[in-house]
């Protein structure tokens, strides 16, 4: 049974623009999926349906066979989303408060909130910054804080919207290390990016969107040859050497 499934998903904006058309995909437990495509291809719109932030204007989305729209609270706990710009998703005045935001919304007991926040901050290596104001953190640390806030809700699937945007090399390595670590711990990972070279070596599936439609999907080896024809840079990869091209290799 897929952990997340879309059936003939369609999304049309109020002004009539068709953002998604006929999207059918199934995400299996433990998958590491990269969704790529040019700007405006519908990547962000697509993943916003995965936890019910947007409602489809056609078709359906299911989480473990349950319709997402009818199970929003449960789905949002289980499908976490890290947004592109961490500044626009940080709501707490301190690192601790921001991490506790989700568990507080779930109205968990105080002890449980405390435990989850401690665990999340420790796993992100942010416990020493717990009393700092988020505004004082570096770009990479803010991304980690955004992730800590999601982890505190104990999700199964974690969606990253352009996780490497605006980060320097050490920042990319830091965030990629966290993402691969989460995947190894059993989380299902979805990354949307147009910089596939930074994470492709770790993915088991690659999907290309173009003008709101899935134009290719499969293993990275299968899809790679078509990347550049849809406006996504494929170099320096060649299908036979993808696994060797990790940014985490020294």
């Amino acid at each position, binding site marked *: 049974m897929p952990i997340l499934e879309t059936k003939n998903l369609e999304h049309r904006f109020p002004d009539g623009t068709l953002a998604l058309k006929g999207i059918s995909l199934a995400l299996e437990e433990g998958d590491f999926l990269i969704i790529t495509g040019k700007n405006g291809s519908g990547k962000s719109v697509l993943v916003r349906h995965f936890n019910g*932030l947007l409602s489809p204007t056609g078709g359906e989305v299911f989480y473990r066979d349950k319709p997402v729209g009818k199970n929003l609270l449960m789905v949002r706990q289980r499908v976490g989303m890290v947004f592109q710009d961490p500044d626009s998703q940080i709501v707490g005045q301190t690192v601790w*408060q921001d991490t506790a935001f*989700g568990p507080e*919304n779930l109205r968990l007991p*105080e002890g449980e909130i405390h435990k989850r926040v401690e665990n999340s901050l420790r796993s992100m290596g942010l416990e020493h910054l717990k009393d700092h104001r988020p505004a004082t953190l570096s770009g990479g640390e803010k991304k980690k804080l955004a992730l800590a806030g999601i982890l505190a809700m104990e999700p199964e699937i974690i969606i990253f919207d352009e996780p490497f945007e605006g980060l320097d090399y050490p920042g990319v390595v830091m965030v990629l290390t966290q993402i691969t670590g989460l995947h190894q711990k059993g989380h299902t990972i979805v990354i949307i990016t147009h910089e596939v070279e930074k994470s492709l070596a770790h993915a088991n599936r690659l999907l290309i969107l173009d003008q709101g439609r899935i134009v290719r999907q499969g293993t990275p080896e299968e899809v790679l040859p078509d990347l550049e024809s849809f406006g996504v840079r494929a170099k320096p990869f060649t299908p036979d050497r993808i696994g060797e091209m990790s940014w985490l290799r020294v």
Partner: protein
Amino acid sequence: MAPGLIFRFFPKESPVHSLDARFKILILVSLSISIFRASWTALILLLILSLFLALLGKPPLKYLFRDLKGILFLFLLIFLGFSFSTPGEPSFFPGFSWQGMELAILFCLRLFIVILGGNLFLSTTSIPRIQAALRWYFRLIPFLPAEKLAVLLGLILNLFPVLLEEYGKISEAQAARCFHRVRNPLKRILATAFPLLVNTLTRGNTLAMAMDSRCFTEKRGFASLRAGLSDWIFGIGSALLPPFLVFLL
């Protein structure tokens, strides 16, 4: 440009930080009401009391004074307005009256104490505690949706720094294109207000989406409030002092 730090929370260990938020609100309300009936002597004493409490709260003085400089313009406008418009004995400056100048200084002093008190409250109290204290007060009023109102006010406080940050970014971008050479005040206001509105709405929309994805609800848990004996003594004492001084002096 570093974002403005006035009215922002600074997590620190201080007697003012640890004081129960309900008492802080009580002190702030008591101070704000009292100063409008205060004589010069009472006002000076209240200013000293406010400065003393502000120092107890360990504020980042260097940044605070830098940000307060922005408010000086407001004080100047108030001073000019009162001095020109209040009838009375002519002063050394043509058009200014002595009575107007006295009234202007009095008003500026009151405003300064309110700003100082407001900043002290917000810089030493986290939003969850403010929300919890507001809910506690709102619950005393029948038929008032206490939770909703407390969460709403907390969100407004959360968005205030966003507004300042966006304003800072827009000002920088405009300065980079020599905007200071534009003299038309209407053009200046429109050129700042329009992008500020658009950026704030866009960012507010993303923030709302991010909060939704973390299961935001107005029925979320509230921070627990605990008042010890020292809170009662310090809180009630500080809240009673301003009206007492006004009554005495």
